């Protein structure tokens, strides 16, 4: 098998992992040797026709795997073709792509073949070779094996910018059913362990002599949950997500719609991926982290544990809390402005700065590229009072006429109809 065939198999095997972040790590450059730089914000070097960003070379070291996770293309009982990179091949590909400015770095994962430690050791070897032999300053994301030894995790954190362990499913029972070798409590303990090391390294960097601080995954940890592979509802998924953010200080929880794979398991027959649901979960996640919404409030916008598919979760929440509106754009405090559908955090801050010097009018919102149709029913300005707030058909009026919302509608009816 030549290198190109291996690359095709092992990229194909890695593409169901949604993470592509290359941001939030320490600032580095190559002016004192080596290759590469990281400057804070991530860079998406290309976009695939699935709309996803390509920032890192995202591959598996091998797709041979002894675990039989029903949702995974690489499960032990799958008929997929198996391949395996050598450490040197991954290092060379990373450097070759990086020098052409095609990637920010490497996201390396692996099937588990011999033992957790053996697999983790291989991943660490790639990262160590890149850093120590080639002075690679770019971004490295390593998948962490929950049962790997503390020494290997320590080394992984020294070379990687980000570490991640995928929780895969939001509940222990369904994970046990679909991924018999995986153990949710063990995954959580490992994430807790990563949190402690990440915080220790941060504290050390802040307090002690900076140069002597032990480096550990400066870009933190993240995880991924598959949406639609088990029967968990959105409330369960968001409960787990909020617990993960609060308990293990994750930088990100990724939601990945369960997607058909070329060789599906009988336990999980292939169906179209629930992309709209995935999108709504990301929006809800955003509201949780940056808009001061609680999980209960977000879920109050939906029905029976599921988010409203036809509307974004903030609008859905507002429609069920009409008594909280309209909000006066010239007077309301920041927390209230953040609750207005269609107003992002950045716009809110600009409005607050602007209104100290000038009155806000509805036309000003258009200049700030805010959707008037979305905002108008919920706000008061000198030149505008909403009329439709109590209208019975406000919900229908607010459903955008985009293809995306249109795609959501039939599902919506079957759920709530």
């Amino acid at each position, binding site marked *: 098998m030549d290198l190109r065939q291996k690359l095709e198999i092992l990229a194909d095997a890695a593409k169901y992992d949604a993470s592509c972040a290359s941001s939030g790590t320490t600032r580095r450059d190559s002016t004192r040797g080596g290759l590469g730089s990281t400057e804070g914000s991530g860079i998406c070097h290309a976009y695939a026709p699935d709309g996803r960003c390509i920032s890192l070379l995202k591959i598996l070291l091998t797709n041979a795997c002894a675990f039989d996770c029903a949702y995974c293309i690489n499960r032990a009982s799958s008929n997929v073709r198996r391949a395996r990179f050598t450490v040197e091949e991954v290092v060379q590909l990373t450097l070759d792509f990086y020098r052409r400015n095609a990637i920010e770095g490497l996201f390396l994962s692996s099937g588990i073949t011999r033992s957790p430690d053996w697999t983790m050791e291989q991943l660490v070897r790639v990262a160590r070779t890149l850093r120590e032999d080639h002075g690679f300053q770019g971004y490295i994301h390593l998948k962490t094996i929950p049962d790997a030894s503390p020494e290997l995790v320590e080394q992984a954190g020294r070379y990687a910018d980000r570490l991640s362990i995928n929780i895969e499913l939001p509940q222990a029972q369904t994970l046990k059913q679909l991924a018999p070798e995986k153990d949710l409590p063990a995954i959580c303990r490992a994430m807790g362990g990563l949190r402690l090391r990440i915080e220790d390294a941060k504290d050390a960097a802040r307090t002690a002599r900076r140069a002597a601080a032990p480096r550990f995954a400066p870009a933190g940890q993240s995880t991924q949950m598959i949406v639609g592979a088990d029967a968990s509802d959105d409330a369960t998924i968001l409960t787990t997500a909020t617990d993960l953010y609060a308990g293990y200080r994750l930088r990100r929880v990724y939601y990945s719609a369960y997607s058909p794979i070329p060789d599906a398991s009988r336990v999980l027959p292939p169906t179209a991926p629930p992309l709209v649901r995935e999108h709504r979960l990301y929006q809800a996640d955003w509201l949780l982290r940056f808009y001061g919404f609680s999980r209960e409030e977000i879920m109050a916008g939906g029905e029976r544990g599921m988010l409203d598919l036809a509307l974004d979760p903030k609008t859905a929440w507002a429609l069920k809390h009409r008594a909280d509106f309209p909000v006066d754009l010239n007077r309301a405090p920041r927390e209230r402005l953040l609750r207005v559908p269609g107003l992002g955090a950045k716009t809110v801050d600009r409005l607050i700065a602007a209104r100290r010097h000038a009155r806000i009018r509805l036309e000003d919102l258009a200049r*700030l590229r805010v959707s008037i149709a979305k905002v108008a029913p919920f706000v008061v300005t000198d030149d505008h009072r909403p009329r439709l707030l109590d209208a019975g058909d406000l919900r229908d009026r607010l459903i955008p006429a985009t293809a995306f919302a249109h795609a959501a509608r039939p599902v919506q009816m079957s759920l709530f109809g």
Partner: protein
Amino acid sequence: MIATVLPGPADLGAWRSAARGLLGAGVPPEQAEWRVAGDAPGLFAGDAAPPAATSPFHVPRAFVALAEIAIRHRDPERFALLYRVLWRLTHGEPALMQVATDADIVRLEAMAKAVRRDAHKMHAFLRFRQVETEAGVRHVAWFEPEHHIEEAEAGFFVRRFAGLRWSIVTPRRTVHWDGQELRFGPGGRRQDVPPDDAVEPLWRAYYAAIFNPARLKPGAMRAEMPRKYWRNMPETAEIPRLIADAPRRAAEMVARGASLPNPNPQKPRHLPPPSHVEPDMDLLDTAADPKEALAALARELAGRNDLPDFARRATQLVFGEGPPGAPLMFVGEQPGDEEDIQGRPFVGPAGRLLDRALAEAEVPRGETYVTNAVKHFKFEPRGKRRLHQSPDAGDIAYYRPFLLREIGIVGPRLLVALGATALRALAGKALPVMKTRGTLVEGPEGLPVFTTVHPSFLLRVPDEEAQRREYARFVDDLRAAHARVA
């Protein structure tokens, strides 16, 4: 009309000293015309020579920061717009920069945003090709930025590829880096850069393989990677084929349905047995070794399938710690955030305070066993924190039988209840801590229970004086408790 001719298209220094001169001479924005050397003069080309720069004006830092970016915009109006904003800032509108809704500010912000986006796309979409020259390997790229960003963004590529030798060719400028210094030259042509590179077939193969045909969203792709960039990115040649084949590939996957399991599945070679351990149902705690009995009790509790809901959201069970046979057994409320992560009792802030107080009271650690009435962390997530939630009577009752068995195995001579939850669990009924404090009440199996506050109470005392007083009292309590078993 006064015309100013700037030496370069994005020369902020030259614009600034010209603007200073105009401002000093009181030239209003309508009277100032701007152009770049080499550009054709406007219809009403001014003939008056621009005044010389005078002393600097104070302008908000936000203006300078925005001007530095916006001046790179290709819009010929940018200089005039900047001057108009400068004029307004110095003529009665000093807070103009904060009025994000002002038409001039909106336009200036939009220009800066376009320039930043152009720079970001240059960092992202520029592709180098490797060429062999007589002087060795060189990386060259052809890129077509929309705005005048070549000089400003050269630094990004220097920081990233300081060890390589490279050239970036654009229609307006060329940038060369030889490992030591940057050189700028006039613009070039696409043909100055070779049409392909040995690694490109691999990169294109990667691009095609990382695409998931079941998630086709070409609109989302084009929003972030507009077509105008495609012609300089080798991988985009794959796009038409990928889009055209996607519906068929996705439909085939669904139509094919599930496949039969591989008759020769991948086998573990030396995977250890799963870490999951069957709960030990040793109800009478009969293990001869008390350490083993405690471990068995912990396993039994962790493995129960009727745990309260909050226990499932905790990371792990946190059991007691200390030598069996310790004469003093401290019982707290429940593990907190750090205890939950580490799986050990009293390792968080309250635990560290207890350690300090025990040391001060000269209570040897070898004589103490520490545990909690409730053995999972009960919390409510709030952003990046987990807020402690007090266990209710039902939670205490659930864990009580396990606490009593733990006491039975450890066999202390005195139980120390730290706070109300522990007191309730040990006394079997709710008692007021402050009234019971320092006295003995009867606990399980007739064991004496000594009551004091939970160390977390000390952490919540607001003023320093009261803190010192309460801490001293807590140390006294520990000393008194120890005296009873000494």
